[in-house]
């Protein structure tokens, strides 16, 4: 186990649901309820000092429970290290906003909401950012068709129930 993950485990104990060290950067998984607390500590406390959130994005695992994985990519310019924080969100659930921790999370969370339809609780101005106001659907969901604009019907490749693919 690397030093960073060990420090995180010692600091947060049972708040960490799982850790992943096979891929780079290493990742930890927390529940949405603990997210803001963990993030605040990761930003301010000494062995971590993750002073930048580089990106916030989601992954849609269609037909799985919980459906979405929300991914926070962190960078520490002080310690020169990276970390990914993941959290599971289901369709009807919300993620808490981390704009209070890093103000730069603002647009990334708007994009998360725009592209995946995951509402961000506590965001100062949650509006669509890349699509226009009044657009229906959330384009990066797997049940959104590649061609056309609105999800008319779900079309799966018969051998692959996990994603829509058009031929």
């Amino acid at each position: 186990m690397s030093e960073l993950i060990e420090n995180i485990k010692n600091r947060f104990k049972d708040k960490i649901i799982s850790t992943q060290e096979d891929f780079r950067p290493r990742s930890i998984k927390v529940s949405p309820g603990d997210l803001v607390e963990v993030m605040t500590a990761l930003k301010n406390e000494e062995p971590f000092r993750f002073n930048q959130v580089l990106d916030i994005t989601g992954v849609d695992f269609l037909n799985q429970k919980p459906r979405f994985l929300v991914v926070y990519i962190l960078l520490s310019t002080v310690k020169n290290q990276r970390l990914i924080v993941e959290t599971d969100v289901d369709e009807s659930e919300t993620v808490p906003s981390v704009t209070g921790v890093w103000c730069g999370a603002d647009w990334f969370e708007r994009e998360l909401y725009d592209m995946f339809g995951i509402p961000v609780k506590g965001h100062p101005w949650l509006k669509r950012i890349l699509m226009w106001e009044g657009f229906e659907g959330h384009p990066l969901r797997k049940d959104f068709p590649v061609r056309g604009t609105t999800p008319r019907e779900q079309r799966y490749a018969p051998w692959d129930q996990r994603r829509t693919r058009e031929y």
Partner: protein
Amino acid sequence: MGSEKDKGILMFTFERKKKDTMILNMGPSHNATHGTLRIVLELEGEIIVNATLEIGYLHRGIEKMAEHRTYNGFIPLTDRMNYVSPIMNNVSYALAVEKLLGIEVPKRGQYIRVIMNEFTRIADHLVAIGTNVVDMGALTNYFYFFKERERIYDLIEKVVGARLTTTFTRIGGIQKDVPGDFESDVRFLLKEIPKSINDVDRLLTKNRIFMDRTIDVGAITQERALEYGFTGPVLRATGLQWDLRKKQPYSSYEDFQFDVPIGENGDTYDRYLVRMEEMRQSLRIIQQAIDNLPGGPVSIDDPHITLPPKEIVYNTMEGLIHHFMLIMYGIKAKPGYVYFGTEVANGELGFYIVSDGEQYPYRLKVRPPCFAIFQAFPEMVKGLLISDAVAILGSLNIVAGELDR
């Protein structure tokens, strides 16, 4: 903060910060916005009270398209992100996928990537500075710079075959080895580019008008910049020595000697100075790379990842099979994820790729550097004049293709 919502002729909702202010719309198509983006300024007299940004005019759904393309098939789309420096996008994406696959390109391929990368960085900075000062009313510098940019693009055309839509890299290497006169061309450019940089340096750096227009305009502190997620020249202008080429070296950048220029105040003038010095440092890197350019192959020799040479495809059964398997089915990455960020001209361009073991990425997220930088624009322009807003917008080097993807 007032909560009066306007949705009249502007066709989108925003909040007025003050009563009885004038609304000025800039864009989506405006001389000072390089690419289509929109700024709605709220003015009190000529002083900017607030700015509201609307982006998304160039959104083409690149991330959605990536989920339906093979790993190599996505490379042409990366050209269309930052269209000022497409080669850097190609290299950045290829490095991310190579990290996912766990492979490394041979030294010669890495060095050629570095040379082309740095030339594109120079081209990007030339455009950034050139157009920035054009917006401020100084046209001459633009011509000095675009002469060099044209020469760089001639070199790119010779190496790649295209000027703008380069598709320079392949997963596991580059598309083909460089032509025979590459080295002399590079040395010619190394001689010529500093002349133009010095010309513009003499024209601008101590120019009273330029200094008045840029010093203390759009300044941002280092803490705010970090919190906003700034990277690249705009962050370095605030005084932080942070360059991924030094801190987390990739593609053989650890072999080269170069300095990371930093500014002091984080204002428009410092950003200009940082970009000017970065171009000189890029030339230093190119000089070292071309002096020590190793021989050997430019791509890895793995038939599951790179296409075999044509002699083998035409003359052997295995070669033909490998060729068709790669074209029809593409590269398969094992399940997992990767995030890899590289230092491009604007900052950190990162690719977050989730693979489920198929030949298509399950999810691909581009982390464009402008996206984080542009959201701080309202904070930077508050209390300044409209002409300052134009100068700041140019100095941030917002490329709408990358911003909206």
